C-alpha cells in the first residue's frame, strides 16, 4: 500500500514536530498532553470498570504515541492498530521510536494496514476500548470519519461496558462543529463526555484549545470520574486537570449547540467547520460534565433560530433581506401548505403566522416582528446554510449585491472572523522600508517610562508592525490615528502626536495568536531565504556570476534581513507565551482589544492587571458593579472614533450598532 499523504517531520528544540498534509499532528515537546487526554481517562475508567484484561482497537494513530499510553496498562491484553498510511507506520517504527517507546514492536500489538471503515465492516469481534485518532477533518472524505454512520460502525464493535475515546476538534474555534460531534454521539446513545486541553504547539499553530470525547453505551457516572485512579505514570493528566478539562463555559455550549446538528453527511460537519464562527465570551458560568447532568440540563441549549439570527452579520442581513424580498412567496407558501398535511398543529400555526405577516413584511409595513421572528429567522439561517453547504463557497471569490470580494462573515462574534480576506491575488506589496502609512513614526514607552518615537521597520501582517528596536505595534482598520504598542503583557494605546499613552490594556488572545503565528512563519521564511541565497552564492561565485556589482539598495536589503533575523529571534523568545492569557468569560462584545460593550450597554475597559473598569462615555449607561475610570479627552476621542468605525463596519451586528447609535445620540441630547 502506498503512502496516502504528504508526511513531514521538522526539528523542534530537541525533538520533532510531525505534519500530515501540512497540518501539525504532534510536537514531541507537548504531545503527551494530547495523547494522555485521549487515552488515560478512558483506559483508567475501563480498568476500574472491568477489573479484567481488555482488548483495544486503535483507529488511526499510526505514530504509536497513543499506543505508548495504552501499553502502560498491564491489563491491556491485545491492541489492534488500524491505520491505512504505511508512511506513518514506517515513521513510527523508525524516527518516532524514542517517543513512542517502540510501541509497535510490543508483542501485544498487531498493526493492520487498512482503512478504518473497511476494517470495521469486515470484522465481527468486539473491543472493550476503541481509540479513535484521526487527522483534522478539513475535507469531505476526512469528515466522513466523524459521521453518525461511521460512529455507528464503532458502536457495533464496542462491548456493552466498553469505552470509546476520540480525538475531536477545537471547541473554541469550531464550537458548532465540536458540539455537532457531541450531538452525533448522543444520537447513538454513546453517552459522550467532552474534554478539552491546552496544547501549546496547537495553540501556536492557531488550532486553539483541543477537544476530545469519551463515552460508553453504559453511562459513565460521576463516581467513575471522581474516583478515577491514574495508576500509570503520567506527565500531564492528573485527576484535577481531568475534571477541570470537563468544565465548559455555558456561552460555548449555547452558541455551539444552537448551530450544532447530528452529522449525517460529511458536509454537515464541513459546513460548520468552514464557518469557524468562534464563540462569544460568557458570564463565567460553566457546565461541569464530570457532574451528573440530565439531558434536560442540555435542552436549554437547543437549536434556536432566533439566537442564531441575532448574530447574523450586518452585511449578510442586508443580502438576505434582498433575497427574501425577491423570492416568489406565492409559490413558496403554496408549496409549504402542500407539505403540511402530516405536520403538527404547532407547525401549522407557524405557517399561518408566516402567511399572515409576510405581505406586510414585504411591503415594509408595520408587522409583528416578535411573532414573525422565529419563522423568518429560520428562513434566514436556512439560506445561510444553503450557501455554506457547498464547500467551495468558503473560499468564494466575491459576493453579490455590494460587489465582489467582501469579507465572508456570516455570524458576528467578538473574534474577527477567520475568512477576513480572500486567498488570491496576493502578490504582496508591503515593503521592508518606506511602508506607506499615514504616520511614519510611532510612539512607545521606553524602559524608564518616557514616551519616545521611532520608525516602522517591517510589516509582520496587515495590522502588526515591528520597529528596528524590535517593538511590536498594532494598528486597527479605520483608526490609523491610533497605535497600540504590543508588549508581552499588555497593549499600550497611543494617539498620534500625543505626549503620553492613552491607556494600558490587558493583552489580547487574538492579537497574541496572530503575532505568534506570524513571527513563526516569517522566521521560517527568512531562514529559507538566507539559506537559498547562500546556496546560490556557493555556485554563482565560482561561476563568476556575482561580479555583477550589487547595488547599494541590495546591500541595504541584506543588512535589513540580517537585522530582521535577530529581531524575530528575540521576538520569538519574548512573545512565545503570550498567545493564551487567562480566558475572559464575560459576555461582552469586543469593540477593540481591551475595549468592550457590556451586556449592561456600558463601555468597559480591561486594565493591564486584568481588572475591569467602566468608562463613562456620552450617553452610555454606567455599570454600577465595577469602578469607573476617570474620563479624559484623548480616551473620549478614541472611543468616539472606535464607535464610528464600528458603525461603518458591515460585520458589526445590527443590534450592537443600534446600541452604539443610541449611546451616541443620548450623549448628544444630554449635551
Amino acid at each position, binding site marked *: 500500500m502506498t503512502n496516502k499523504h*504528504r508526511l513531514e517531520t521538522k526539528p523542534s528544540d530537541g525533538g520533532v514536530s510531525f505534519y500530515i*498534509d*501540512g497540518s501539525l499532528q504532534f510536537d514531541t515537546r507537548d504531545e503527551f498532553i494530547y495523547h494522555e487526554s485521549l487515552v488515560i481517562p478512558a483506559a483508567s475508567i475501563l480498568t476500574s470498570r472491568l477489573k479484567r484484561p481488555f482488548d483495544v482497537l486503535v483507529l488511526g494513530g499510526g505514530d504509536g504515541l497513543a499506543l505508548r499510553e495504552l501499553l502502560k496498562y498491564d491489563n491491556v491484553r491485545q491492541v489492534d492498530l488500524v491505520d491505512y498510511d504505511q508512511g506513518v507506520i514506517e515513521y513510527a517504527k523508525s524516527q518516532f521510536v524514542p517517543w513512542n517507546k517502540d510501541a509497535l514492536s510490543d508483542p501485544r500489538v498487531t498493526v493492520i494496514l487498512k482503512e478504518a471503515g473497511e476494517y470495521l465492516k469486515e470484522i465481527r469481534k468486539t473491543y472493550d476500548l476503541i481509540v479513535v485518532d484521526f487527522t483534522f477533518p478539513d475535507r*469531505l472524505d476526512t469528515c466522513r470519519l466523524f459521521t453518525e454512520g461511521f460512529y455507528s460502525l464503532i458502536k457495533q464493535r464496542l462491548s456493552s461496558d466498553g469505552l470509546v475515546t476520540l480525538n475531536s476538534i477545537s471547541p473554541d474555534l469550531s464550537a458548532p462543529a465540536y458540539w455537532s460531534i457531541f450531538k452525533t454521539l448522543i444520537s447513538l446513545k454513546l453517552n459522550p463526555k467532552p474534554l478539552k486541553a491546552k496544547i501549546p504547539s496547537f495553540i501556536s499553530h492557531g488550532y486553539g484549545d483541543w477537544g476530545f470525547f469519551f463515552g460508553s453505551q453504559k453511562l459513565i457516572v460521576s463516581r467513575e470520574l471522581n474516583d478515577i485512579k491514574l495508576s500509570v505514570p503520567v506527565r500531564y493528566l492528573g485527576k484535577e486537570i481531568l475534571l477541570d478539562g470537563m468544565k465548559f463555559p455555558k456561552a460555548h455550549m449555547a452558541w455551539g449547540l444552537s448551530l450544532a*446538528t447530528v452529522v*449525517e*453527511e*460529511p*458536509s*454537515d460537519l464541513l459546513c460548520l467547520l468552514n464557518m469557524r464562527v468562534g464563540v462569544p465570551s460568557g458570564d463565567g458560568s460553566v457546565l461541569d460534565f464530570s457532574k451528573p447532568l440530565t439531558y434536560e440540563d442540555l435542552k436549554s441549549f437547543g*437549536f434556536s433560530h432566533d439566537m442564531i439570527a441575532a448574530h447574523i452579520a450586518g452585511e*449578510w442581513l442586508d443580502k438576505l433581506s434582498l*433575497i427574501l424580498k425577491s423570492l*416568489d412567496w406565492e*409559490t*413558496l407558501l403554496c*408549496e*409549504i401548505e402542500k*407539505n403540511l398535511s402530516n*405536520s403538527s398543529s404547532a407547525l401549522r400555526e*407557524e405557517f399561518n403566522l408566516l402567511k399572515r405577516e409576510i405581505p406586510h413584511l414585504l411591503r415594509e409595513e408595520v408587522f409583528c416582528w416578535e411573532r414573525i421572528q422565529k*419563522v423568518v429567522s429560520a428562513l434566514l*439561517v436556512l439560506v445561510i*446554510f*444553503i*450557501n455554506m453547504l*457547498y464547500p*467551495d463557497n468558503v*473560499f468564494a*471569490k*466575491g*459576493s*453579490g449585491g455590494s*460587489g*465582489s*470580494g*467582501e469579507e465572508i462573515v456570516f455570524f458576528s462574534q467578538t473574534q*474577527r472572523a*477567520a475568512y477576513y480576506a*480572500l*486567498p*488570491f*491575488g496576493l*502578490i*504582496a506589496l508591503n*515593503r*521592508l522600508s518606506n511602508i506607506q502609512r499615514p504616520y511614519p513614526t510611532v510612539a512607545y514607552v521606553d524602559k524608564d517610562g518616557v514616551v519616545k518615537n521611532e520608525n516602522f521597520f517591517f*510589516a*509582520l*501582517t496587515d495590522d502588526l508592525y515591528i520597529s528596528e528596536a524590535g517593538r511590536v505595534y498594532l494598528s486597527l482598520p479605520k483608526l490609523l490615528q491610533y497605535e497600540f504598542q504590543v508588549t508581552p503583557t499588555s497593549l499600550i494605546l497611543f494617539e498620534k502626536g500625543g505626549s503620553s499613552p492613552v491607556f494600558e490594556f490587558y493583552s489580547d488572545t487574538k492579537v497574541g495568536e496572530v503575532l505568534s*503565528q*506570524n513571527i513563526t*512563519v516569517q522566521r521560517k*521564511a527568512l531562514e529559507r*531565504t538566507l539559506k*537559498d541565497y547562500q546556496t*546560490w552564492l556557493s555556485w*554563482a561565485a565560482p561561476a563568476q556570476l556575482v561580479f555583477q556589482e550589487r547595488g547599494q539598495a*541590495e546591500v541595504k*536589503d541584506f543588512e535589513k534581513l540580517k537585522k530582521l533575523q535577530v529581531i524575530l529571534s528575540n521576538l520569538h523568545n519574548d512573545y512565545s507565551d503570550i498567545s493564551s492569557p487567562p480566558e475572559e468569560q464575560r459576555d461582552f462584545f469586543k469593540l477593540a482589544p481591551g475595549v468592550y460593550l457590556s451586556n449592561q450597554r456600558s463601555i468597559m475597559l480591561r486594565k493591564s492587571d486584568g481588572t475591569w473598569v467602566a468608562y463613562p462615555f456620552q450617553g452610555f449607561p454606567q455599570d454600577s458593579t465595577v469602578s469607573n475610570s476617570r474620563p479624559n479627552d484623548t480616551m473620549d476621542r478614541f472611543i468616539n472614533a472606535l464607535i464610528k468605525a464600528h458603525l461603518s463596519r458591515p460585520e458589526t451586528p445590527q443590534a450592537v450598532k443600534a446600541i452604539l447609535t443610541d449611546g451616541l445620540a443620548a450623549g448628544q441630547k444630554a449635551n
Partner: protein
Amino acid sequence: MHLRYLTDNDKPQWEDLVRSTPESGFMQSWAWSSFKELEGQTVLRLGVFSDDVLCAGTIVYYVLSSVGASALEMPYGPVLPWGKAEVASQAMDLIYKELEKISAETGAPLARIEPFIEGVLPSFMGKVIRAPLDLIPTPTLIIPIDKEDNDILAQMTAKGRYNIKLAQKKSVEVYYAIDEDAIEDFYYLFELTYHRHNFAGEPRSYFESMLRALKNDNMIRVYFSRYKGMLMGAAIAIFYGKRATFLYGGSTSFFSSVMAAYGLHWQMMKDARAVGCCEYDFFGIAPDGKPDHPYSRFSQFKFRFGGKKFVASGAHDMYFYSQLAKMWIKSIETAK
C-alpha cells in the same frame, strides 16, 4: 434537441465546446470536474444535442447534507450558444427541466448559474435572483495578450512597464513546474501570505489534488520567481481555451524592490499567449468606490498591467420552491 448525461466518450466534444465558448471557463472543464470529484463532490455532466451534435450543456456540482443537497452549482455555466438566443433558450429549457429533476431527487433548493457575461442576463434565463456569493470574482481585470510584446507593454502604465524592466534588469528568474514538489514551494509562500493577511487559506491537499487533476490536460502551471536563488513569489495559473487565469498567489515580504511580482506576471502572460490564450484574467479587483475593499491594495498593483475591467453579471439563483418549502418545514420542526 435532446439532453443526455455525458460519458467519458463525450469528453473531446465537451472540451471543444467549452473552450470555444467565451462566456464559459475552466470550472466547466472536464478536468476541473474531475478535481471536484476527487474532493468528494458529486458531479453531473449534462449535454444538449441538436441533430446529435453537442451544442450546449453544463457541469453541475453539489454535495449532500442531512437537510438536503447544497445548491446545484454551475460556475462559468451553463455553456450555451449565447449569441443564438433561440437555440440557447431551447437548450436552457432542457437544462432547467433536468435541474428540477435533480432538485427533486436530491433535495437541492436552488441551482446557481454563473456565466461569464457582462450586464443583465438574457430573459430566457427565467426568474433568477442575484446570489449572495460568487465563485468567480466580479469585477475582474482582463489584459489582452494576443499582441506583440511591445503592444502589450504599451497598454500598461508607465510604472508597470518600468517595474517589468526592473525585474529583468535585476535578473529575476521566472520558471514554472507541474510536478507535485511544486506545491511544496508554492504552499510555503501561500501559507506565509495567508498568515500575513489573516485569512484562512485552502489546505495544501486542495492544491495537490488540483495539480493532479489538471496537469494531464495541460491546464495548470505553478510559476515561481527567484532572485539570486531566493524564492520571492509563486502563482498558480490556469490556461484554458482563450483565457489564462491567475488563480492563486503568494510571496515573501523581502526584496520587494526587485519587483519580482512584475516579472512573474509578465512571464505568465507571454507563456499564456504562446499556448494560444488571448486574454489574461487577474481574477478579481476591488469594485469602484470601495477604498476599504480587501482587494484594493492588490487592485492598485494589477491596474499597472493595463487591461480592461470586466464586470460580470455574477452568480444568480433559480429557486426550487418545493424543496425550499420542505427544508423550511424540517428546519422549524428541528428547532426547539
